[in-house]
């Protein structure tokens, strides 16, 4: 098997793990084991692996609320992820953050964000850090098409270009921000032009074809590593509803059907063609995610006392629980 094929298969494996993981997240919700219903599945967007495959140890990134797949691609432990999504104490964030606020500093994940666009400017700062440290780390902001309407994106792009920072802005355009199709949110649909106008290296790739994303991302990531900030739009389709409760009544079954034809996983499978290998990968992914699911469900919720931890750094006094304040006031004058 050729090296290229190895890489293709590796990308297939990552995409398959993401797909299976997200399916389990949906089940976690159905079992009533998720913390809430604000779960945003990245099914259909797995071709982002074409970009993450250019990332290295030391690179950092921020994601939006639909970032499970990206995090997995960067090495996350699915059991700890599912535990976090289930609000368990053993989760990545001790059950405080949940699906929309998952992070792992060790893997370079500076945080998922529930504010559309909220994490975007952080990569500018990470870029300053990398530049000042003389490292060749790149920092990547992942966000959706909805964030193309948030002003802070343009502030961040301008800064990154102005200061020639090793920063990439990656827009995963899944055609929808909640129920709003992108033609109802964008005055003009040329997103790379909104990057080149600020001096960035702006590109676009078909999110149905992971290898096309990989190629487009090469130039953008290489440029960024050499101080040319970049922008990549990955053109994809959101297979499911916005969050777990959304049945997408605002789009037609025909459109959905067509969108789902643009399945990066199915296309990669077809391209590679080696069904035996791929079936094995599929099975492994199922087994891995089943195990992760079991672990997550078995995990305990966080201690009550942990609620007051992590507001401030260890070693500084935590916030005073209200009951203590009441005891001070009402206990005393009794």
């Amino acid at each position, binding site marked *: 098997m050729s090296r290229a094929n190895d890489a293709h298969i590796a990308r297939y494996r990552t995409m398959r793990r993401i797909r299976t993981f997200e399916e389990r997240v949906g089940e976690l919700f159905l079992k009533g084991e998720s*913390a*809430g*219903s*604000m779960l945003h599945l990245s099914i259909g967007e797995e071709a982002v692996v074409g970009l993450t495959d250019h990332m290295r140890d030391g690179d950092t990134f921020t994601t939006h609320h639909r970032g499970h797949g990206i995090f997995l691609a960067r090495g996350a432990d699915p059991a700890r992820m599912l535990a976090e999504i289930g*609000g*368990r*104490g053993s989760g990545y964030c001790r*059950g*405080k*953050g*949940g699906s*929309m*606020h998952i992070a792992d500093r060790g893997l370079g994940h500076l945080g998922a*964000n*529930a*504010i*559309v*666009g*909220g994490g975007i400017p952080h990569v500018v700062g990470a870029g300053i850090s990398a530049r000042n440290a003389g490292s060749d780390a790149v920092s990547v902001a992942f966000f959706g098409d*909805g*964030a*193309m*309407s*948030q*002003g802070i994106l343009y502030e961040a792009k301008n800064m990154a270009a102005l200061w020639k920072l090793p920063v990439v802005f990656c827009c995963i355009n899944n055609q929808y*921000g*909640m*129920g*709003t199709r992108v033609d*109802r*949110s*964008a005055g003009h649909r040329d997103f790379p032009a909104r990057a080149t106008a600020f001096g960035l290296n702006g590109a676009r790739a078909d999110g149905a074809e992971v290898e096309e994303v990989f190629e487009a991302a090469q130039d953008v990531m290489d440029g960024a590593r050499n101080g040319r900030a970049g922008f990549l739009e990955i053109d994809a389709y959101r297979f499911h509803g916005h969050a777990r409760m959304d049945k997408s009544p*605002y789009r037609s079954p025909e459109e959905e059907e067509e969108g789902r034809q643009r399945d990066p996983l199915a296309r990669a499978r077809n391209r590679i063609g080696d069904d035996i290998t791929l079936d094995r990968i599929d099975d492994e992914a199922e087994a891995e995610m089943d195990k992760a699911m079991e672990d997550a469900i078995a995990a305990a*919720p*966080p201690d*009550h006392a*942990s*609620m*007051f931890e992590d*507001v401030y750094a260890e070693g500084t006094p935590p*916030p*005073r*629980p*209200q*009951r203590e304040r*009441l*005891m001070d*006031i*009402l*206990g005393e*004058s*009794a």
Partner: protein
Amino acid sequence: MTTTYRDALRQALVDAMEDDDSVILLGEEVGLYGGAYGVTKGLLDRFGETRVIDTPISEPGIVGAAIGAAMTGLRPVAEIMYVDFAGLVMDQLANQAAKSRYMFGGQIGVPMVLRTQGGTGRSAAAQHSQSLEAWMMHVPGLRLAMPGTVSDAYHLLRDALRQPDPVCFIEHKGLYTLKGEIGPEPDAPWGQPAIRRKGTDLTIATYSRMLQEVLKAAEALAPSVEVEVIDLRTLNPLEDEVLMDSVRRTGRCLIVTEAVTTGSVASEIAARVTEQCFDWLEEPPLRLGGEDIPVPVAPALEAASIPDATLIGETARWLVTREAPSWAA
């Protein structure tokens, strides 16, 4: 006729839009989707695209556009999906909407309503569960209403839509399915609290969803402790004589909010009650609010981070009878 908080809000919008062509809605998902919490369902079909405007995800732009529309003859209802996004729009809200009339010497009013919703209850985590009304209350020029009943959902929104000045109207995500009746008249005039329950031993002041918890607690405490429950309804204007009268009668005051306690509306109310009722007070006005922490996602922690009927009841009894609850022993 029994309806819900959600439907009452929708009814208020419909009635206002029928009465006044200048009322328009704009915000994310207010049209085709019908609102993230379903409040504006059906309004796009009914009033068309020029009056029900789906916007891009541009909160500062939405509020800014509403301001410009209000300055030029419309009466916009801008929706910000979660009050947690206030941090994106406080400049437009506090520096623009609230100050325009003043800065321009009275020439230019901004009769708009900013509809949004806040609070906990959906495991929506730290960026989607806040109660930030204290920020708005600290802004002169900005009206602030927070309905805690179905009838107020309707009447306060109608009232808000008659104000000549900008109103921040904060709903509670935990109340949309609350059932109740829309009264023929508002329970109190705009700017005045309503007495939701009469009592002699203790006054509890509250608003929004906590009203429901306080009422539960009050019922459970009676008849051994009789709590008077004051629903503040609007935080600006807030004609607080009703509250002060009550405290002067009961001699005790507890203020319950869902927001983080430090720097909260509870602090403001406590300060006012002390200033105005000092000689009548048996006990210090006491605040019961959210813990001073971001809201955690784990459901049990989330629930534990804010007051509920149990804690309110325990604290109320403690304040009146000096019987400490078990955990304070």
